[in-house]
């Protein structure tokens, strides 16, 4: 009885074969469009004569670096990201702390507080546009009544007010996400740590800073990065509310990409803006994944 000598490096084809369908699908729906998008950024393609685009090397990128609109968008994106993240986080933390306490209507309130997140973005925008309306808006009405302002404000047509309005809407729509993540984080903090702090002489404020906040650190990093990433990627809400205006005051990078491609029809240049956005998102994603891995290994 002789056995066949086993070759040391025989390739086992079965796993590769089984993975192949998924691989093909991934390449088709993910990798191919990204490669297309990036390669498009080296052409001067316009939407109406899509097939006539000429290869122009890195000219789009040269132009990008000198484009005031691009730098404006980068600044707007940073401001929008920072403000909306901060307000969303604070609202989420406040409600998470509230819902982490025991009281009778807790289950009911938790459901209510999740609603903004469940509403489609466009519907949320419409609700806010009505509330912010200079003539019929309830917000202006209340603020005038309360004496904060003399006359109704034109929130969405004034460049200094459009960003605050957008940040308000974003925070209102996104805070349930922050609340849920922070609530989960709060519930992982052992009760004994609070009790130890009470015995050690810490009052409510000390307990918040010495037990609660440090206890939330693993979820904080992930949540903050997630909120920033979301604000970079957000199109529907901003486009439906301001289209990037007035006077480009809310034109984030994703809106600039959209406007360049479909308003100005310069799809080649839009691809270059999109690629720049992609690089920024990639950097944040890398930080995000590192944070996740680190919080896992810490736990």
């Amino acid at each position, binding site marked *: 009885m002789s056995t066949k000598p086993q070759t040391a490096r025989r390739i086992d084809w079965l796993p590769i074969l089984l993975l192949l369908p998924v691989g093909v699908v991934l390449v088709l729906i993910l990798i191919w469009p990204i490669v297309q998008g990036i390669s498009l950024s080296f052409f001067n393609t316009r939407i109406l004569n899509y097939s006539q685009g000429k290869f122009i090397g890195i000219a789009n990128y040269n132009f990008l670096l000198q484009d005031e609109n691009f730098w404006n968008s980068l600044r707007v994106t940073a401001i929008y990201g920072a403000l909306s993240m901060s307000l969303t986080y604070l609202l989420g933390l406040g409600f998470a702390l509230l819902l982490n306490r025991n009281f009778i209507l807790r289950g009911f309130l938790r459901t209510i507080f999740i609603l903004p997140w469940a509403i489609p973005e466009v519907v949320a925008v419409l609700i806010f546009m009505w509330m912010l309306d200079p003539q019929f808006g309830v917000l202006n009405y209340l603020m005038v009544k309360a004496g904060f302002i003399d006359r109704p404000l034109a929130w969405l047509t004034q460049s200094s007010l459009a960003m605050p309005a957008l940040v308000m809407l974003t925070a209102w729509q996104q805070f349930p996400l922050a609340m849920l993540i922070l609530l989960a984080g709060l519930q992982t903090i052992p009760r*004994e740590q609070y009790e*130890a702090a009470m*015995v050690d*002489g*810490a009052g409510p404020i000390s307990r918040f800073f*010495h037990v609660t906040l440090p206890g939330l650190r693993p979820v904080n990093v992930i949540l903050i990065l997630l909120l920033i990433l979301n604000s970079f990627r957000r199109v529907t809400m901003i486009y439906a509310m301001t289209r990037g205006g007035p006077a480009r005051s809310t034109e984030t990078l994703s809106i600039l990409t959209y406007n360049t491609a479909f308003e100005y029809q310069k799809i080649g240049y839009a691809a270059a803006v999109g690629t720049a956005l992609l690089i920024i998102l990639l950097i944040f994603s890398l930080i995000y994944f590192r944070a996740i891995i680190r919080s896992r290994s810490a736990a």
Partner: protein
Amino acid sequence: MAPVSIQNVRKAFGALEVISDFNLDVQDGEFVALVGPSGCGKSTILRMLAGLEPVTSGNFAIDGKSVNNLAPKDRDIAMVFQNYALYPNKTVAANMGFPLRMRGLSRAEIDDKVNEVAHVLGLENLLGRYPRHLSGGQRQRVAMGRAIVRNPKVFLFDEPLSNLDAKLRVKMRAEIKELHQRLKTTTIYVTHDQVEAMTMADKIVVMRDGKLEQTGRPLELYDAPENRFVAGFIGSPAMNFLEGEVARREDRVCFSVGGEMVVSLGEKFAPLISQAVTLGIRPEHISIHDEPVPDATQMYLGVVEPTGAETTFILKSGDAELVVVKQGRFPFTPGTSLWVSFPTDKLHVFDTTGNAVAVNS
């Protein structure tokens, strides 16, 4: 250092009463262990004393003053928790210094005290580390450091060793005892492990179902349990219990288990004749012989467990089973017949309600 007094304490969660009329006096500097099975209410007593759990009724006093209405931080107690409850984001030094920081001590004062306690506990080299980089035993020691750094009136320990492995538990047991001997701070120590209670405490409080079963010095509880529960709970391996009846047979007072196994008792048990009782005897008090002797009962050997210094035997006869522990090593093999006899002065008798019955000689 201070005495602790617990008077008529009751605790109920809604309609469920978990502690009923609990009374305990702890002397200044005493080490008291609250021991009992899980859910007996021992931790609840400790948590009420610490102020972490509201009291339904009754009074807790530390150093003669009622603390019922004081916040935990104003009771001048320190507590060591089962899961250590260290602050994960703080170094060992910051963890130990936290109670002092909350009391507004200066940096220099905090550093001095932390270094002093770290020296006592052998933590000098770990001061800059974070809890996640410490072993279970080291974390436990840091938790103790955080408790003693403030020099409180009372130490409260809530099952502090139950998360450690057996070997470390024995080591830390000795360390805590030594620490108490040095600091002489009043200590209340909750555990479900009667060995911990026996080895460490000046006084043991045995609890069951929210009630105090017996209080006493460790060996008092061992030698003179007031009821069957305490008798069975204190001591390892546990006391043997045989249920049966006292009867006179052939002019001798005997104890019979279901009419099969018969143990000769002696005249002083005569008052118990025709009563159903439970007989208790500790494993080390039973004598075994490899040949018939007067007044001995024949049983067969089920299991032999040699542990080196001593040997544990499990003997059987009908439904009755006895655990016997003897110093030394024995050549007996399972299945062989052995004869057991009970020294009558070591027997415990319990009536049908479980209370100990005094046998007058």
